[in-house]
């Protein structure tokens, strides 16, 4: 369960960034997230969509405790991200499209490293590792260095790394961006499995088709503000245009880069 209450996040701008904003811009900070509230429930997939620069990654990073909110609170499984970041991290798995791996480690070593950081016992690690490696068909390349693996194989290692400690909450930040169809499919399958096993899933994507087919709940944000928040069925029933894409553009305005 993720509970987000009135969070805002502003970034202080450097002199160079202020210059780049142009003469019309006044002030020394920019509001990336503006008073947003929503909640993600267990056993459901929460979709987060918005154009580039809408504030999606900032929200997900705040859930992941990498960034602190300027105001408002975020709780993950009842733990406040600012007050108890360690407890939050223990129950969280984070996977993004930009997530990298250590090229010089083997797939096995990479997964073991994260299990060790989660202080998993040998028995728990072996059980979880065997289940994931078999599910993702990773045994064949578990001893190979990551730098020598294909993109699809790397993505599997990344999934295993994210799920090794069996997190109750999983954050996916544009997890399929830049991936081919096969690699994307393994991610989509994982997201569905997370839902089926009762985990809380929050998922951001540029691919509206993925949102449409996966999400139970939806939030649309633009320029840091919430434009819609509710169940996907509710969105479908309220929409004034034919498709999700058209409705998204109607809500955030023409010219927004999805």
């Amino acid at each position: 369960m993720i509970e987000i209450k009135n969070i805002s996040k502003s970034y202080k701008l450097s002199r160079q960034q202020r210059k780049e904003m142009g003469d019309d811009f006044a002030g020394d900070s920019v509001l990336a997230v503006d008073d947003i509230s929503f909640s993600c429930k267990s056993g459901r997939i929460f979709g987060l969509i918005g154009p580039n620069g809408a504030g999606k990654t900032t929200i997900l990073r705040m859930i992941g405790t990498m960034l602190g909110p300027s105001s408002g609170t975020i709780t993950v499984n009842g733990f406040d991200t600012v007050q108890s970041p360690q407890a939050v991290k223990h129950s969280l798995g984070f996977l993004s499209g930009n997530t990298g791996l250590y090229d010089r480690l083997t797939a096995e070593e990479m997964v073991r490293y994260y299990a060790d950081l989660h202080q998993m016992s040998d028995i728990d690690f072996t059980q979880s590792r065997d289940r994931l490696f078999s599910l993702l068909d990773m045994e064949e390349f578990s001893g190979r260095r990551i730098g020598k693996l294909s993109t699809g194989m790397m993505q599997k290692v990344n999934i295993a790394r994210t799920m090794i400690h069996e997190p109750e909450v999983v954050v996916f930040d544009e997890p399929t961006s830049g991936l081919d169809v096969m690699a994307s499919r393994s991610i989509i399958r994982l997201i569905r499995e997370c839902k089926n096993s009762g985990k809380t899933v929050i998922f951001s994507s540029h691919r509206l088709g993925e949102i449409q087919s996966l999400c139970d709940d939806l939030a649309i944000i633009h320029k840091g503000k919430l434009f819609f928040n509710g169940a996907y069925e509710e969105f479908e029933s309220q929409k004034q245009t034919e498709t999700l894409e058209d409705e998204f553009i109607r809500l955030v305005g023409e010219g927004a880069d999805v």
Partner: protein
Amino acid sequence: MYRIFIIIKKELRDLVRDRRTMFFMIVFPAVIIPFLIGGVSKLTISIMKKEMDKTLTIAIVGDEYDSTLVEFIRNQDKLILITTLSEHQIKPQILDESIDGAIVIPNNVREYLSEKKQVVLKHYFRSGKGENINEKRLNRILEDYFSPLIEARYQSFSLDKAVFEPYVISKIDVATEQEKFGKTIGTFLPYMFLLFCFSGAMYPALDLGAGEKERGTLETILTSPASQLEILTGKFIVVSFFGVMSVIFGLMGMLGAVNLNSDIPAEVITIAMTILGAKPIFLMLSLLFPIALFFAAFLLSISFYAKTFKEAQSIMGPLNILIIIPIMIGMMPGITLEASTAWIPILNVSLAMNDIIAGTLSWPLYAEVMLSLLFFTGLSMWISVKFVSREEVIFRG
């Protein structure tokens, strides 16, 4: 503590597999530098030998005025005498390297010698880089010729030479051979060690900061249960470990080079072995660990600030000067370890190491250096942790 250990273990495994890091930790200090030092010393010796063995071409103008001197010079080994030039031809001939030097004998030699006056001989030579071996060789020949003439003149006047030289300095150097070595060649060693330490720490720092950002692994590690302090502490330890290991490999390389270089005199080898004994090594390492942490804090801050590996490299390159200048100051004559210099980071380590090598280390000053190091290393690590923990640094760009 457990997670710090896990991070250290992983970083070590990762970096040991990185060829570039291993090159700067092992190959550069242990093989290339000793090879260069050995090569340069061999080259210098061979050039000196060649110069000493070279047949000199010397012109004498006015040979008809002092046939004894001319005959004396003509009888020297490895020397060709030319007596066909006039004085105005000497300079161009030396400049175009047709001759190595020239002596001009005045026409009044016989008259002045018989009247017991002073004869002025002109000695033409061309100065160059380093020692003027040609000029020295010719000077020595002339001194050998003059010496009996000077003695004979004293005797002809029944004079005791000591009457004209009321003071003679008899020099007694109380410095041990180790100290002499330490204060001469030894000043160069701390420079090498600190440079090894810095360059050995630089690549791991680049990889563990900017490299993590560029690969996208920083975001992942930040979502793991390891706190930022644990992550940074692990990285500090690994980066400084690589810095210290570079010095150890450098020491081993130098030891090997000293033993294998047949041109190095036996007494120098004995001194080198004393310097590389357990106590001096322990004392030097005790200074290197904190200074390596100081370098690690400095390098990791830059590395985390940079958006990319390339940007970090371009910032670190010119900042090398900040490290080199204090080391260079430590090599200057007259700069010694004292109460004031013991507080200046890097310079104090350079000077203290020099005293360790020379065997002249003062314990109160060593304690002061350690206090300074602990203070500045602690301060730099604290600043680095505060700096790197800032969101705008971690997610810069």
